[in-house]
């Protein structure tokens, strides 16, 4: 049954086969995507026609590799900029929220905490349309009353940033709060006794202590933003992010360039995730 109990070898073997199949199921689509990025064929399918790097470096006219593909490169750049803005602002507000909920007491705290958790249970698509509607209503209001035409209220780069910020901040808040809860308050008290101001204590001691969790949460926020599709779908203007751009290409037929981009994404996210995990472990031990 479990490790410490006698088991039949058939039971063990059946379980090992099941787990192997499960991992094949888990990795098959990713592996196939990566392998076919190097196939010397115009379609992402077998048979294998030899190894090529065309889908990375070829500059046309028949095959355009990802590093020469201006459209996809622009999308990657837009996603990168979005993710930078989103992770930076999520970290700032998330840390404020963590301090607010862990260290302060005030009326309506429970209600505010509940609101902070709400983005976890709102489907991304709904958040997207709500923010689109809210922004449009605000835009019309400003136009009617003050004759102001504000770019932010139309689907655009900044609206995407705002939309992603609205739910990713919740994750940052939860991660930083969890760490702050374990903080030893006697350190703060000691510093206060020695004449430090509250701000100095936070800057030199508490934030120092939180640094690893802030960096970790920032990395996760970056990834979540870079890969977000559901919320972004309704908020993009003329500058589409990479997931949106890829979606349009996949929907209308595919070329191995998509495999090449996918490979880069898989490698990039794995490296980021493993580094994050490595530092987590180091911290824990």
């Amino acid at each position: 049954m479990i490790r410490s109990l006698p088991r039949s070898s058939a039971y063990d073997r059946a379980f090992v086969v099941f787990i192997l199949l499960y991992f094949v199921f888990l990795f098959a689509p990713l592996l196939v995507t990566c392998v076919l990025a190097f196939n010397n064929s115009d379609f992402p399918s077998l048979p294998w026609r030899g190894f090529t790097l065309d889908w990375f470096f070829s500059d046309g006219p028949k095959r355009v590799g990802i590093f020469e593909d201006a459209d996809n490169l622009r999308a990657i750049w837009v996603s990168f900029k979005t993710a930078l803005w989103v992770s930076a602002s999520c970290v700032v507000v998330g840390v404020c929220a963590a301090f607010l909920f862990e260290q302060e007491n005030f009326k309506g705290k429970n209600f505010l905490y509940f609101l902070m958790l709400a983005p976890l249970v709102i489907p991304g698509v709904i958040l997207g349309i709500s923010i689109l509607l809210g922004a449009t209503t605000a835009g019309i209001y400003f136009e009617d009353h003050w004759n102001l035409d504000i770019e932010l209220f139309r689907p655009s780069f900044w609206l995407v940033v705002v939309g992603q910020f609205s739910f990713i901040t919740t994750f940052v808040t939860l991660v930083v709060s969890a760490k702050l809860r374990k903080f030893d308050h006697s350190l703060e008290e000691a510093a206060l006794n020695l004449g430090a101001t509250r701000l100095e204590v936070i800057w030199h001691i508490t934030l120092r202590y939180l640094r690893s969790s802030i960096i970790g949460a920032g990395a996760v926020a970056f990834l979540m933003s870079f890969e977000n599709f559901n919320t972004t779908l309704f908020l993009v203007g003329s500058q589409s992010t990479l997931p949106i751009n890829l979606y349009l290409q996949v929907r209308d037929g595919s070329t191995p360039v998509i495999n090449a981009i996918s490979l880069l994404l898989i490698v990039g996210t794995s490296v980021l995730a493993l580094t994050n995990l490595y530092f987590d472990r180091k911290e824990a031990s």
Partner: protein
Amino acid sequence: MKRSGLFWIFLAPVLIWLFLLIVLPHLDLLILSFRVGKSWSLGNYATFFTEPIYWLTFVRTALYSVITTLLTLVVSLPVAFYITKLSRPGVRGFLMVLLLLPFWVSELVRVYGWMILLRESGVINYFLLQLGLVERPIEMLYNDATMIMGLVYTSMLFMVVPLVSVMESLDDSLVEAAYDLGASKICIWRTIIIPHCKPGITSGSIVVFMLVLGNYLTPNLMGGKNSLWFTEQIYNQFIASFNWNQGAAFGFLLLALSSGIIWVGLRLSGQRLGEVAS
């Protein structure tokens, strides 16, 4: 108690975030869903209930989400059990990393991987033809079964992780005692393991259900012409027919359904949202 200046520095951004970006937009969603043109009306909701295409999609989406959640649970239970109770301790960390890795990768890439595996000119069909198992390629994409498999695949992690963490806290000696007293495997699962894992099962199921219900990519790319998902109806109202009020009503219905199910799930298991979140 006198408030320090810091309190307001912490409070201000949080209030701006929650009220401007969460409360107001959803109030706007609710208000707009009750408007047709310039006047108040229940017309948008009436359309939903009188046009079978809309409410049938809604019911099907809900039903398929429940099926997907159950299937995900059935697949994830033995995986979590193997990792926590059967694998050697040295291998466990490695297995966990292996399990987490694919889920860091964008959902789009994962769905795309399945598309090139399963489609008519796909990799699986190529091997089936080479082995002589089929005469001509079979289209495995664009049907409900494939779509459900895709949904299980994309949301599995959110079931496995909570299950692993509750199973880790299950004391092995309970299972050993039951075994010594002659309990059968089924009896041990039914009376010890499952009841112990209940909190993990609840939180996993809630998250998976919500993610599946609100999914757009997987049903859109892997489902057929007839397996329309409710999020696609919302998208169509917004982007294709520009009927934002109708779309708002649909959005609100979906939000009500997902919040309702989550509420029921929490009630049944006696948990609070904060506990599930952590």
